[in-house]
């Protein structure tokens, strides 16, 4: 669903990612690791078309990103759920409205969706904070809300950047369980994380692959975990 082909990227200085190829197929569950500053966030941004590669190709749902116009990118993004590393919300809307925002923007606010929203709020443990405004949330609550917003549209691909950086281990396991269930429904999932415990827990449940960015290249890791 997302293919990178001989992709390179730099922010104007030296090359950050070099000659990387990857394919994210339906039903795949990938972790992305690497030291801080290695380029994990950059990698994800390339996948959801916030950045355009300096060399090589990115194909999203079969379309070459370079050839997509801005509306095309918007359409493709509706099929990709993203959890940003520093999750941002519309500060004047309640959390429930924020989580439902992708539905509102896409004009899909039927009763079925409202039902899903309720369930999702319970799953991420935010049912009691549904009416709060984003600045009133704790760090972990924000991260959970961001994950809920990413999956509300039932997207084909979920890209999450450090989704458990601010939550405790119990909550991390709950969030992982949500992602695993979505994965079993056929969604492709790519998670950037530092949390080795999370990776271990996932590997015990499903067939997760671990990619590692090191020295500008993408390596397969996993055996050592």
């Amino acid at each position: 669903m997302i293919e990178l082909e001989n992709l390179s990227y730099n922010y104007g200085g030296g090359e950050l990612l070099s000659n990387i190829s990857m394919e994210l197929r339906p039903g795949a569950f990938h972790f992305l690791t690497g030291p801080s500053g290695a380029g994990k966030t950059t990698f994800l941004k390339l996948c959801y078309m916030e950045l355009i590669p300096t060399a090589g190709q990115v194909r999203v749902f079969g379309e070459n990103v370079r050839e997509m116009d801005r509306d095309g990118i918007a359409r493709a993004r509706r099929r990709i759920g993203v959890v940003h590393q520093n999750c941002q919300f519309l500060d004047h809307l309640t959390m429930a409205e924020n989580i439902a925002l992708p539905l509102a923007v896409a004009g899909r606010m039927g009763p079925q969706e409202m039902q899903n929203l309720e369930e999702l709020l319970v799953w991420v443990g935010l049912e009691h904070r549904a009416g709060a405004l984003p600045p009133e949330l704790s760090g972990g609550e924000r991260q959970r809300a961001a994950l809920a917003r990413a999956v509300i549209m039932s997207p084909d691909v979920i890209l999450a950047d450090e989704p458990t950086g601010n939550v405790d281990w119990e909550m991390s396991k709950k969030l992982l369980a949500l992602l695993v269930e979505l994965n079993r429904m056929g969604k492709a999932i790519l998670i950037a994380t530092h949390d080795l415990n999370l990776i271990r827990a996932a590997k015990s449940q499903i067939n997760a692959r671990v990619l590692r960015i090191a020295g500008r290249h993408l390596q397969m890791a996993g055996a050592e975990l």
Partner: protein
Amino acid sequence: MFSEGRGSPSANPEQRVVPPTGFTAHLTFLSAAAMAFLAVFALALSFSAGRLAERWATELALSATIRISAPQSQIPDQARAAMKVLETTPGIASARVLDKAEQEALLEPWLGPGLPLDALPLPRLIEVIAEPGGYDAEGLRQRLAAEAPGAVLDDHARWRRPLVNAARRLEQLGWLSIILITLTMGAVITLAAQAALAANAQVISVLRLIGAKDAFIVAAFVRRFTLRAVAGAALGTGAGMLAIALLPETGEAGGVLTGLGFHGAGWLWPLAIPLLAGFVAFWATRLAAFRCLKELT
């Protein structure tokens, strides 16, 4: 979700995604109001000055006299000659030789009543009425000097012409101010829109992330800013019209300018100001928003 709040928002979620208030909002509203207020005054000034110029010009047109002082025997000939000149002068509506009674009435203030005018070698007077556009007084003078040497054109309203010019200038100044004010309003609204977009960079990036199209984002901002500019301009216009309506009325006798204001259908003109503000705001915001979105990649 989106079901409380105004109207039926699930149909128009773009109405809710932009924060409802904020200083840029007040700023747009207030600058539109202030500009509209000033524009009403400029408009009133233009109209009043225009009316004043009109009136002065009319008075000017009614007040020329030709006096023929010559030996008594030559007077009838010269009067005829002068009349002939006047007939062929463009811009003269009519000319008429005053009769004795009229001339007596004119002289009375100077000489007192009961004067034996018949015994006096009085000059003959011709009253000249010009057309609204006026006539070439200098040319007329030269032609009179040639045809009727005793004829003297007393353009006694001539000194008023600068006043008419002044009034016309004032009218132009009013329109110039309106143009300036409109440009300023456009610039202020554009910058306010850009400030709002910059302040809402987070809103925009969130909307982008969840797959909102540019048109959706732009519509949200444009709608809000246009409404705000129209509302502000309407308030400012209303306040300006009220202020002008409340200006102390000095009556027609006091000259048009002292009665600065609108007459009759003139009161409809200021109502165009909010429409103009809305038009300016719509395009200013739209262009600013699309440019801003393009820059954000």
